[in-house]
């Protein structure tokens, strides 16, 4: 069965929510991207606060892509970690055999800690220690809520004011986001995107999802453009 997007000559799903894809289409985060670039290069820590679905992991994937070659980047989704797991082991595994990391050089690991509010205090403390000792070069934390993070006072002190927040998107941002991925501006118009945007709580993740369902619907009906009826019917299905 042919995926719907292939019928429009797309090789991959333009509305994918896979954070590794379309990192060049992140909108409204230019300043954050710069901050990421700088803080990683300069061996600093950075905390990125953002609501779910607003692209925290995508930002980390951008960093992974950018710095993955020269330096070793390790991404850890703390949500998936067993609370009792010693993060040292995770880092050793991910860093690979060449790094018997904590005993040999190189010591250039860039650590991307996703959803760090799930990371235990012990593990936070280990991270701090490894950073102090130079085993980790720089750390980017993401979280949806800073207060839920179990940072010790000394870790917070090291972070300082290096904290940034992902802003809400406005309508133009939403349109740019979609049209960056979908080259054909006739397929899904700005007006339609705006409509769908408001119907997705202005959440980029939800916007992508609903755009995909609407697009899929249109393609099923062999349409080369999304029409109002596609939107109506997809929304109708929701109820």
């Amino acid at each position, binding site marked *: 069965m042919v995926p719907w997007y292939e019928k429009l000559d797309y090789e991959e799903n333009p509305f994918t929510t896979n954070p590794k894809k379309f990192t060049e289409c992140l909108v409204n985060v230019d*300043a954050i991207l710069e901050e990421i670039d700088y803080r990683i290069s300069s061996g600093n820590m950075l905390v990125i606060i953002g609501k779910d679905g607003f692209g925290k992991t995508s930002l980390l994937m951008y960093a992974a892509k950018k710095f993955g070659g020269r330096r070793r980047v390790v991404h850890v989704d703390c949500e998936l970690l067993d609370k009792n797991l010693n993060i040292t082991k995770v880092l050793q595994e991910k860093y690979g055999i060449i790094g018997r990391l904590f*005993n040999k050089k190189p010591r250039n690991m860039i650590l991307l800690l996703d959803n760090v509010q799930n990371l235990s205090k012990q593990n936070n403390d280990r991270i701090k220690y490894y950073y102090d000792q130079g085993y980790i070069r720089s750390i980017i934390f993401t979280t949806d809520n800073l207060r839920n993070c179990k940072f010790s006072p000394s870790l917070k002190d090291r972070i300082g004011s290096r904290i940034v927040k992902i802003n809400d998107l406005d309508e133009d941002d939403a349109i740019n986001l979609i049209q960056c991925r979908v080259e054909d501006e006739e397929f899904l118009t700005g007006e339609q995107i705006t409509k769908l945007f408001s119907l997705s709580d202005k959440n980029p993740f939800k916007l992508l999802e609903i755009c995909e369902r609407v697009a899929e619907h249109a393609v099923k009906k062999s349409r080369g453009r999304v029409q109002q009826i596609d939107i109506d019917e997809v929304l109708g299905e929701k109820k």
Partner: protein
Amino acid sequence: MSKPWYRKVGFFDNPFSIKPSEYNEEVIAYDLDYITRKIDNGQMMFIEGAYGTGKTTILKSIINNFRGKNKIIYYNFNRAHKKFDVKKLLAGANSFIRNMIGMNPYNVILLIDEAGFMKVSDAKSILKHYRTGAIKSVIFVNHDYSAIRLPDEIEELLEGNVIRTIRLSKDEAVEFIRKRIGDSQFLSNMSIRKIFELSHYNPRKLLQNCEDVCRFAIEIGDNEVSDFHISEVLGSSRKEKKRKKQKVQKAENQVEERKTEQAKTIPSQRRTNRKIKEEIVQDSTITNIEKKAATVDQSDNEDLPEYNVVFFDRD
């Protein structure tokens, strides 16, 4: 992305890094010689210092100093719900052979970081092994001495051995920064003094603020930091930076939290800045030993102190 600002002024890496390991000749607020002598004499010590004044740096220096001579255990108490077991820690520090033939560890140097989380029973346990000679010297580190509950015997041993942060003078702050950037012209001594004040005289804050101010100045194309840059970056924390790009919104202001945590500094004994020669130790034998440490670490026993970093050298 264009080059980071420090590359534009001739540094290949961030000169204001806050990592203690990068510049460990640089123990600014403590007398390393004095501390080394105390360790050699097998004494116990307490190092008190606010966050960002160099406690971890000095621990790193101690480790570097003693690495060739003693086993060193670094243990951080900032953990919840785990039992502290000195015996197991020491067993981890003991060489494989010594453990095999039943000989106890000896002359171990114990570094206790974030001792504020230590329990009295833990302290007593340390004391016991100190008295047997297994532990040669203990250095407790915390940002606040009064926050720790210690048994009387330890308090007695610590008398005269509580070392407090000394607040840097403005000149010393300048010296501190100059050690990092030499006589580079992009940051004047006057600016360093100003930033130091705005950093509440805290060394780490000073470093971070120098970095942010210099970055701002260089990135907007100026050659030297001026009052304008300082006030833009540090003057009011909510102020928008002068950028053409989109605004980045900074989250919670943690300043209040930090303010309450900074120790009141007591200008007491004189200390000297000494350059500590960094000895590069070839850890060729470390593979065998870390295997042992790893075994200790990976045990399923809930009571094991699973975070201990054990340093060894040629045995």
